[in-house]
């Protein structure tokens, strides 16, 4: 199967998905938005993003996690701002998947930039305040197909006055002393959002009218992986087109509709005393589990996808009230992250940063403990400090890779690590426990000569971040 054909198959699949998605979104916009708590809004944004990321671009595990982490942070910032500055009316999120342009020329991209700098999306680029035309934006690297996701965070709040627009995304600026005093906050949120979005190769813009409301729009590119097997693609396609869902009257089969009915257009209304959710958990659970069952077999990726399946099946069984419990599902949906770090302060700071992004992490303090932890359960991501007592990060990574390749912990035992004898991995339903699955490991280095990037990669690490860890560190994932 040559590359061209793979590409074609991927694009075809994309087109169909996108088309259907657009349809369902348009239908939804005619409906009234459900009333719900912020955490639910964000959680559903998460769900939707996971879903889109699973079905549009097929990417390798840690990138999916990285992407969701990044978007989540941007969304959290924008949505909490919107809610903060809105006293009545509503706050909502709209998500669109936008098709990638097929022809990319230098001219096209230069046309779109407000100042004629370079053809690559540079971070120094000054953003225009008007919304970007979604289907014209292009990327210089046209080899891999790119899908763009656009997200609007809109509100009917106090709006932003003209004079504040030029400095809106600059650090430490609040609109005025009054605003700062009244609303609190640090004035850094938007600057960081812009930075994050641009680091991800996207754009962040705003349109606003004082006393009416604002809409913050960001668009982000996602690469379609060429790893997918095209024969499985056609399986997916036929599955998607022929699915029949009992709880929806019309026979438009598309799974997106069912998933997206509660989630693609969702909002938060203030000024209403009745906060009851109109969301039907049954609908979401049912459709989603079917989707995840079939569509994710081909991707060699996130355990989180399979976790969706488990969570949703459980949900189906237990969910019977109309109130959606955001707590339990969220915990299950999250990737399992292991932090291996000996310095207490670094642990505290890193844990808190991950928490900000909505993730809990397990913590161990050296390489040997890391091996034991990995043996006990599956992790989707490991953040590994390099310099640690007892066993350092490089050795621990080597031994984890050795286990992944050989399926045995012999090397570790030889290195003197005390491990519990693992249970037999031959149970039929533990498909996600096969030893071959590679856990993404990210080195956290203090940049000393002894912790060079080459060493990290040579020992089996996938990427590295240098300390001190900054809030933007998920970008490097």
């Amino acid at each position, binding site marked *: 199967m040559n590359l061209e054909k793979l590409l074609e198959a991927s694009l075809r699949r994309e087109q169909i998905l996108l088309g259907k998605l657009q349809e369902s979104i348009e239908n939804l916009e005619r409906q009234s938005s459900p009333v719900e708590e912020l955490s639910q809004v964000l959680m559903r944004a998460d769900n939707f993003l996971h879903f889109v990321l699973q079905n549009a671009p097929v990417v390798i595990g840690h990138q999916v996690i990285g992407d969701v982490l990044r978007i989540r942070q941007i969304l959290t910032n924008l949505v909490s701002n919107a809610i903060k500055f809105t006293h009545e009316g509503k706050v909502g999120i709209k998500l669109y998947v936008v098709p990638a342009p097929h022809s990319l020329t230098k001219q096209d991209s230069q046309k779109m930039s407000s100042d004629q700098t370079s053809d690559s999306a540079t971070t120094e680029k000054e953003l225009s305040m008007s919304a970007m035309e979604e289907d014209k934006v292009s990327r210089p690297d046209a080899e891999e197909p790119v899908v763009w996701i656009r997200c609007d965070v809109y509100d009917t709040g106090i709006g932003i006055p003209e004079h504040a627009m030029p400095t809106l995304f600059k*650090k*430490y*600026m*609040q609109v*005025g*002393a*009054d605003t*700062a*005093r009244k*609303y*609190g*906050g*640090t*004035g*850094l949120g938007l600057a*960081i959002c812009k930075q994050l979005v641009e680091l991800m190769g996207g754009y962040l813009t705003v349109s606003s009218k004082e006393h009416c409301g604002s809409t913050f729009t960001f668009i982000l590119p996602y690469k379609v992986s060429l790893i997918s097997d095209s024969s499985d693609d056609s399986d997916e396609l036929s599955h998607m087109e022929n699915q029949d869902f009992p709880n929806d009257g019309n026979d438009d089969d598309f799974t997106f509709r069912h998933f997206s009915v509660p989630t693609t257009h969702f909002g938060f209304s203030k000024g209403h005393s009745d906060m009851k959710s109109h969301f039907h958990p049954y609908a979401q659970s049912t459709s989603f589990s079917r989707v995840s069952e079939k569509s994710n077999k081909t991707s060699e990726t996130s355990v989180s996808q399979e976790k969706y399946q488990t969570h949703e099946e459980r949900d189906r069984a237990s969910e019977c009230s109309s109130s959606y419990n955001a707590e339990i599902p969220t915990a299950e949906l999250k990737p399992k992250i292991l932090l291996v770090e*000996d*310095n*207490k*302060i*670094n642990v*505290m*700071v890193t844990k*808190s*940063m991950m*928490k*900000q992004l909505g993730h809990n992490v397990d913590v161990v303090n050296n390489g040997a403990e890391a091996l034991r932890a990995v043996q006990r359960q599956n992790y989707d991501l490991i953040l590994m400090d390099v*310099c640690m*007592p007892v066993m350092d990060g490089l050795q621990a990574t080597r031994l984890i890779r050795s286990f992944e390749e050989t399926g045995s912990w012999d090397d570790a035992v030889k290195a003197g690590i005390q491990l519990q004898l693992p249970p037999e991995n031959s149970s039929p339903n533990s498909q996600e426990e096969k030893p071959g699955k590679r856990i993404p490991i990210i080195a956290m280095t*203090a940049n000393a000569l002894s912790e060079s990037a080459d060493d990290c990669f040579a020992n089996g690490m996938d990427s590295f971040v240098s*300390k*001190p*860890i*900054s*809030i933007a560190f998920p970008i490097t994932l």
Partner: protein
Amino acid sequence: MWRFAKRLKNDGIEFLSNQGMAVVVDGFLDGQFSQLQLLQDESNPDFVLEVVSLFFEDSERLLNDLTIALDQQNVEFKKIDAHVHQLKGSSSSIGAQRVKNVCIAFRNLCDEQNAEGCLRCLQQVKQEYLLVKTKLEALLRLEQQIVAAGGAIPMLNEFC
């Protein structure tokens, strides 16, 4: 915001204000500290206080261990290096850049097995630590006062 300006000056932190925005220009704490402030929110209201307290505790323990280690007949440079490495890590994570810089020099001296140099460095690191401790305590007090008065917490500026 303005009445706090005077207070800040007395605590030895320079204060500049522009359009009602608080900017603290300081050579002791770098941009990393403002990242920590960002991590503080409603769900984590005492984060800065907790991290800073932990930093104080941890650093004082390390400085104590270092003093003892350098006081020995046979100085164990590897052990000392390990302690300094820890201190470098924490001071870096909290934004105490001057402490971190001294630690870097300290580690070089350990590599050279220079006991006298290490002793001098230890003195220097203690000094820098006390200075940054004073700053942090003043900032925390100030933040508490501002929050109590219902205002927003000033952010550190990264250029320094």
